[in-house]
């Protein structure tokens, strides 16, 4: 098949238009995304995203690993929300196994997931503002993000690739001083959100670059498979945390921010308000944190405690077996979706009854959201493409997998 064109080429449809290539190496594409544009003067006639530059075959790799060994791979598909991916994967495997997770582990998972959401939204806000030309916000956002990364390092030993969740619970009891540090952060963070909003929300330049730009109707957003703030910015009221709760989310009170306008500003407002809601959930999780174990009582699946392993023969045998042979999962299939910072993150896992998954498919939110870009930009001005890409909040690692 060597005669085939090596990369997709768009041919100009009319004499007056020209083809412009944006990326794959472009600072505003948030990764290696190539966008091919057909333009008529300053107006976009057609737009086609070209992806796949970061494809590493993670879904194929998963088929060769034990169930537990897949967890570190899930971190790496989306480096901005590792905990969300960990959670979605372990929930899917636990559903396959029929495991009951103790309340404390569930609440810790919620707490860490909301910190992850804040982390991800901060990176989005900083880089989105940077794309549009507001440099200061970037530095402010990364200041607070640093504190979240330190909290992650404290609890898991890693700043970004945390791999902290386990099938059946979480890896370790959080260290001493962890809750105080999170409480401290939850105390001062709302003021910081005011700071970002002071810089952007009422700023005339920001409003001119975002209001009425890259509009999308609710019908288009649903038809194109958009989820998360990209969908809620167009006025569709769905949030999986509230509507199809998982990991005890039904026990938390929070609002789901919606905007009706469907433009870049609407999506911005949705995410900024989500920052405030998330910190509220973190506070509730701190205040109501239940006592008890952090791992399910399932000896053949969950690794035994270190102490037990040193004193009890049984635990040592289980430990050895889980590490060397993994654990068998009853045959079947599940689809588990969670609300990631970018939308519906779903894992579809098929088990054939062995210790390795037969098929793992990741339904990536950005992959579907990226399809809305053409709808947002066609017929609009070239300069707004950068604002539109930023407002979808894409992570190319998750799109290409």
């Amino acid at each position, binding site marked *: 098949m060597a005669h085939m064109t*090596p990369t997709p080429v768009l041919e100009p449809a009319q004499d007056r238009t020209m083809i412009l290539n944006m990326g794959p190496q472009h600072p505003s594409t948030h990764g290696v995304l190539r966008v091919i544009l057909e333009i008529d003067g300053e107006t976009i006639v057609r737009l086609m995203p070209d992806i*796949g530059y970061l*494809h590493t075959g993670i879904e194929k790799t998963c088929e060769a690993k034990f169930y537990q060994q897949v967890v570190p791979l899930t971190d790496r598909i989306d480096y901005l929300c590792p905990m969300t991916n960990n959670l979605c994967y372990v929930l899917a495997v636990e559903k396959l*196994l029929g*495991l009951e997770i103790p309340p404390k582990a569930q609440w810790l998972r919620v707490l860490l997931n909301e910190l992850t959401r804040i982390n991800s939204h901060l990176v989005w806000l900083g880089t989105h503002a940077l794309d549009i030309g507001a440099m200061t916000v970037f530095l402010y956002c990364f200041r607070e993000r640093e504190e979240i990364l330190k909290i992650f390092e404290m609890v898991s030993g890693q700043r970004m690739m945390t791999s902290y969740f386990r099938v059946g619970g979480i890896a370790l009891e959080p260290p001493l001083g962890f809750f105080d540090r999170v409480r401290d952060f939850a105390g001062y963070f709302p003021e910081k959100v005011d700071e970002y909003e002071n810089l952007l929300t009422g700023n005339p330049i920001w409003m001119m670059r975002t209001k009425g730009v890259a509009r999308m109707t609710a019908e288009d957003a649903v038809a*194109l498979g958009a989820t998360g703030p990209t969908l809620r910015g167009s006025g569709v009221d769905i949030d999986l945390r509230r509507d199809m709760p998982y990991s005890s989310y039904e026990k938390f009170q929070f609002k789901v921010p919606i905007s009706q306008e469907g433009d870049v500003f609407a999506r911005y407002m949705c995410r900024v308000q989500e920052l405030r809601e998330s910190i509220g959930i973190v506070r509730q999780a701190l205040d109501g944190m239940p006592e008890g174990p952090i791992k399910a009582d399932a000896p053949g699946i969950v690794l035994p405690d270190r102490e037990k392993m040193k004193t009890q023969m049984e635990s040592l045998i289980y430990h050895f077996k889980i590490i060397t042979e993994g654990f068998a999962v*009853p045959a079947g299939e599940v689809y588990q979706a969670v609300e990631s910072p970018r939308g519906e993150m*779903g894992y579809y896992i098929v088990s054939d009854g062995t210790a390795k998954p037969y098929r793992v498919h990741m*339904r990536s939110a950005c992959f*579907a959201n990226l399809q809305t870009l053409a709808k947002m930009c066609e017929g609009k001005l070239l300069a707004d493409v950068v604002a539109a890409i930023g407002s979808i909040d894409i992570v190319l690692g998750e799109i290409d997998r």
Partner: protein
Amino acid sequence: MPLASAITDLEQLKGHPAVARLVGWNPSAVEGAKFDREEMTIYVERGSIREACAVLREDSACPFDFLSDVTCVDWYPREPRFEVVYHLLSIPKKERVRLKVRLNSSNPVVESLTSLWPGANFFEREVFDLFGVRFSGHPYLRRIMMPEDWEGHPLRKDYPVEGYR
């Protein structure tokens, strides 16, 4: 919490809105159904997947108006070899349903859903690229992850995972 065994009897499953709707529309289009781990799977006859989705989407009681995901599973060397898997979501009713189409390895073609949901575009291109399943009526069926001149379909089970190319 022990797992309940899967229910595969179509008569018992008619309480589910999607099963009831599809059986009421065209009983020969439904090849079977399975309720396992709180999830509903419906096997749809290969030629009627697009119409079945259109019926579910337009259902007034429980409209499955959102296409969450399209993917595929390769059961090599078993025949029918491919299972194309669709996950639909009802935004008003917060219900999910999984539709499956079985395809033989000799001619793995199924109708595209892009006319119903333009968002199926990327998902179907991905399945085409990684499994070699073709979607008739797709506007732009080309590789999406792998380079255009790549040979083979990496997520097939008979694709070599080691050695040199």
